[in-house]
């Protein structure tokens, strides 16, 4: 950066030395000592505003510090604190005026650790008619209205290329398209548009070689990029691929599953329960690869139940898989009409049965009754299960759904501070606008 035309002057209010870093460019300069606002265009530095400063802010970037913003060198020359009041609460942010003798002016803003790199827009955006909330288009990018408020200048330091005083008020309109923010400042005389780009605190710290670590950003800023959005989108695409594979696999399984019948027999029993009611079936082969075995027990129970202790026993190894199933069916009618409960059929699955010769040991049980219960037992092997596909679908969907939820929460936090919080109607928002403006 070429050395600026530095002018050394004296404050007419307190006599302290004043340095004009931008030379003839400055319109306003503030005395570091007494904070008198001086007319930089006047060779005698006439006093524009003189006041007793009750609060003093120290800029995080000391005035006079030179920095490198993406290859362009700038010097911090001005600092101001501005605020808006919304719902009775005051929100303050800090703005830095940067200057380069060739590039001109550039600005940085900081709110709760969130930084924006701002340049003045050379042309205004184009409003998109009929949009609610309002939308504007700027260089092909669509910006959504975020907030309209009245900003007040609370503190100034250094020099500025415009006339500025403490207490100055302007109407600000923010439109966002993360990571960009389009802002207008409206006074009686003019409307100025600027375009800001969200910057990481570490980037600012490195650009100006500031000591220590930057304060961590708090909350979600209006044009803060949503990291969850692109990730959620990418995960959704991968999930769509997995879901398609899942459907293909499901169809293939439905087509190729053997569902091979391996045993079917009908029986009857009368005694309620007894070891003597137990019996074994003839030996039957289960062939092919290790697979599940579907066991279907059908019984002619009516307002009654039957319980079956079943063991699928390998005739060669003596290994038994034991399980118990109940078949119960009840029906009737009451003031609400006919009702029924249960079923006369029960289907269960024996997992991972290797090939071999098997027989069943069955011990039926039932309530004390004089009637005979007829039932049948049917076995099929290699039967597809919908449950596994549902479990796989839930597992695959969980991660992208969680990311979508995080994205939604992020956007909800972003818009919570706006004139258009998520989930509120436009009419409700309008009410909020009027209260903000009052």
């Amino acid at each position, binding site marked *: 950066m070429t050395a600026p035309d530095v002018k050394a002057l004296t404050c007419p209010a307190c006599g302290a030395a004043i340095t004009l870093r931008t030379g003839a460019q400055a319109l306003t300069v503030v005395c570091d000592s007494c904070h008198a606002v001086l007319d930089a265009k006047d060779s005698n530095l006439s006093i524009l505003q003189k006041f007793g400063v009750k609060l003093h802010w120290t800029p995080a970037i000391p005035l006079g510090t030179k920095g490198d913003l993406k290859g362009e060198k700038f010097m911090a020359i001005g600092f101001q604190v501005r605020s808006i009041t919304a719902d009775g609460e005051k929100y303050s942010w800090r703005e830095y005026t940067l200057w380069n003798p060739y590039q001109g002016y550039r600005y940085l803003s900081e709110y709760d650790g969130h930084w924006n790199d701002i340049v003045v827009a050379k042309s205004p955006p184009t409003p998109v008619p009929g949009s609610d909330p309002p939308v504007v288009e700027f260089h092909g990018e669509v910006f959504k209205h975020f907030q309209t408020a009245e900003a007040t200048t609370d503190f100034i330091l250094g020099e500025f290329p415009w006339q500025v005083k403490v207490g100055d008020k302007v109407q600000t309109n923010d439109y966002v398209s993360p990571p960009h923010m389009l802002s207008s400042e409206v006074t009686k005389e003019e409307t100025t548009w600027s375009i800001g780009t969200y910057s990481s605190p570490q980037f600012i710290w490195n650009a100006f070689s500031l000591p220590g670590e930057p304060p961590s950003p708090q909350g979600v800023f209006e044009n803060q990029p949503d990291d969850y959005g692109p990730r959620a989108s*990418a995960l959704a695409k991968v999930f769509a691929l997995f879901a398609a594979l899942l459907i293909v696999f499901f169809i293939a399984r439905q087509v190729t599953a053997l569902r091979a019948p391996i045993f079917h027999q009908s029986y009857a029993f009368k005694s309620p329960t007894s070891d003597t009611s137990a019996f074994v079936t003839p030996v039957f082969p289960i062939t092919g690869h290790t697979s599940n075995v579907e066991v279907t027990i059908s019984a002619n129970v009516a307002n009654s139940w039957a319980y079956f202790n079943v063991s699928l026993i390998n005739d060669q190894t003596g290994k038994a898989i034991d399980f118990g199933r109940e078949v119960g069916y009840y029906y009737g009618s009451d003031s609400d009409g006919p009702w029924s409960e249960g079923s006369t059929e029960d289907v269960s699955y024996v997992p991972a049965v290797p090939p071999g010769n098997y027989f069943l040991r069955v011990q039926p049980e039932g309530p004390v009754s004089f009637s005979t219960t007829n039932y049948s037992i049917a076995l099929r092997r290699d039967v*597809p299960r919908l449950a596994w596909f549902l479990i796989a679908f839930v597992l695959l969907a969980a991660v992208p759904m969680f990311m979508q939820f995080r994205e939604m929460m992020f956007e909800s936090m972003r818009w919570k501070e706006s004139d258009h919080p998520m989930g509120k109607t436009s009419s409700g928002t309008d009410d909020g606008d009027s209260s903000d403006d009052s």
Partner: protein
Amino acid sequence: MTRKYAVFGVVVLLLLAAAELRGWSLDSTSETLNVPHTVRDNPGSYRPAYLYTGSGRYLRGK
């Protein structure tokens, strides 16, 4: 993140394939080893160790 999810998805699909083709089941069963061949002659003497009892009415073991 996407890569980790892709790996996770592949693992889920492989587990699904294994579960389907090997016939894994969520239904509870219990296993008894070395059931004597005499069970065929005297089925009532066998006392399986039940885990699943349907209504919960019969929870008993040997």
